[in-house]
């Protein structure tokens, strides 16, 4: 825990202490709670509803109307490639991507043969592999749990212009909702933190923190919503006359693939 974490905790604790319920109020509340609970238990009736039935109906109508409106907005947003909520889509080579997904599912099979269901994530970069195993405390694996393939591609060029060159590829196999924390990734040489959350409708929320501690010394943090199979630019930064960019592509490894 760093200094700012301690200060935040101190601020939160101070706020919660100042808002702890007073003894005077608590005494009144105890009386009310006991009396009402006894009455409710004796009569076996529900606690009185906070809203009248007609108000519930009005709220229900509003909820349906709001859902329809929200659904319409999302529909139009998804149809729009430049929507604010979706990160910038990039042209991608679908064939190469599907080949990578197939290769990753084979890799997952091999690792699962070795470690069973304990595999939480696998990261591959420059002939090196890092494997994250499930900790004992998080060993409650859901039978519905799925794995995702994520490709991170780092490219660089001079800030004066010129062609983009590949600096690094990282291929990740991640069980959904597993937090991936890799202390140092090969030539990235900095910590990588990633978390995924499938949203349905072929959309996945991805939180990423990627630190570059080698000559590039920069970092990219992003919270994006990605469409399966689309290559998306999630961040750029400039350092010492060089411009870097990071693209991300994501897809599911289906259970059939894993076999």
């Amino acid at each position, binding site marked *: 825990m760093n200094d*700012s*974490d301690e*200060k*935040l*905790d101190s*601020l*939160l*604790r*101070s*706020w*919660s*202490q*100042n*808002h*702890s*319920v*007073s*003894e*005077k*109020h*608590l*005494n009144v*509340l*105890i009386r*009310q*709670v*006991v009396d*009402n*609970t*006894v009455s*409710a*238990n*004796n009569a076996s009736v529900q*606690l009185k509803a*906070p*809203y009248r039935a007609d108000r519930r109906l009005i*709220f229900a109508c509003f909820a349906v109307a709001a859902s329809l409106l929200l659904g319409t907005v999302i529909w139009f947003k998804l149809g729009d490639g430049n929507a604010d909520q979706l990160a910038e889509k990039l042209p991608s080579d679908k064939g190469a991507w599907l080949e990578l997904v197939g290769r990753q599912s084979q890799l997952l099979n091999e690792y699962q043969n070795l470690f069973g269901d304990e595999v*939480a994530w696998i990261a591959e970069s420059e002939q090196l592999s890092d494997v994250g195993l499930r*900790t004992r*405390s*998080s060993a*409650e694996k859901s039978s519905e749990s799925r794995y995702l393939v994520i490709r991170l591609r780092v490219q660089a060029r001079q800030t004066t212009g010129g062609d983009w060159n590949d600096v690094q590829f990282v291929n990740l196999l991640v069980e959904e*909702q*597993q*937090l991936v924390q890799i202390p140092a990734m090969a030539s990235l040489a900095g910590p990588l933190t990633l*978390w995924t959350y499938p949203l349905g409708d072929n959309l996945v929320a991805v*939180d990423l923190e990627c630190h570059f501690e080698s000559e590039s010394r920069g970092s990219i943090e992003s919270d994006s919503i990605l469409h399966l199979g689309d290559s998306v630019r999630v961040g750029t930064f400039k350092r010492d006359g060089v411009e870097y960019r990071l693209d991300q592509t994501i897809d599911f490894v289906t259970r059939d693939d894993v076999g």
Partner: protein
Amino acid sequence: MVEHRTENATKGPSLEASDQQLITEFQCTGSKECLEELVTRHIATVRNLAFRISLCSMAADDITQEVFIRVIRNIASFRKDAQFSTWLHRITVNTTRTHLDRGARTQSLENTDESMFVGSAAGPDQLRIQSELTDATHNALARLPPKLRTAIVLTSMEGLSAQEAARVEACTLPTMYWRIHKARKLLKGWLKRELEP
């Protein structure tokens, strides 16, 4: 914790009775003393947790009432190998979340009855600074989505470990770690000025 005892000590419940024994006794005999003992033991925890997540004093009182009725009615679903405090935290969190889902709004500090809170014994200048910090912290907590607010309340204010908080929220440990991480990151951004030395 407030001490509240019945006048007739000989007929009162044993102070060493477990929470489950008190509930069973209340269900079988209707003993008000047993219920009073149970409520007295846990009301501060329930009320404070409900307020910290709902950020509304009136709602916290209603939620506290509802939690104890749910506890009495649903004791059969409590597993004996589980911790009563975890179960109680879970019921409180779920009841508060339901309350928020019903459309209840978090409360601004201007509408809060200060006599409900413990407060502090600071001087006028300190009180002004403290009030500014309190307002900023309250507003920042109100901006957090309920799930992230619950994660930070359970761990930073209630003192639960990430593992215990994950049990209360019935989510995986990595998900709880992520919620805590995300909540802290957002709060640090919103409270940047207050966190400066």
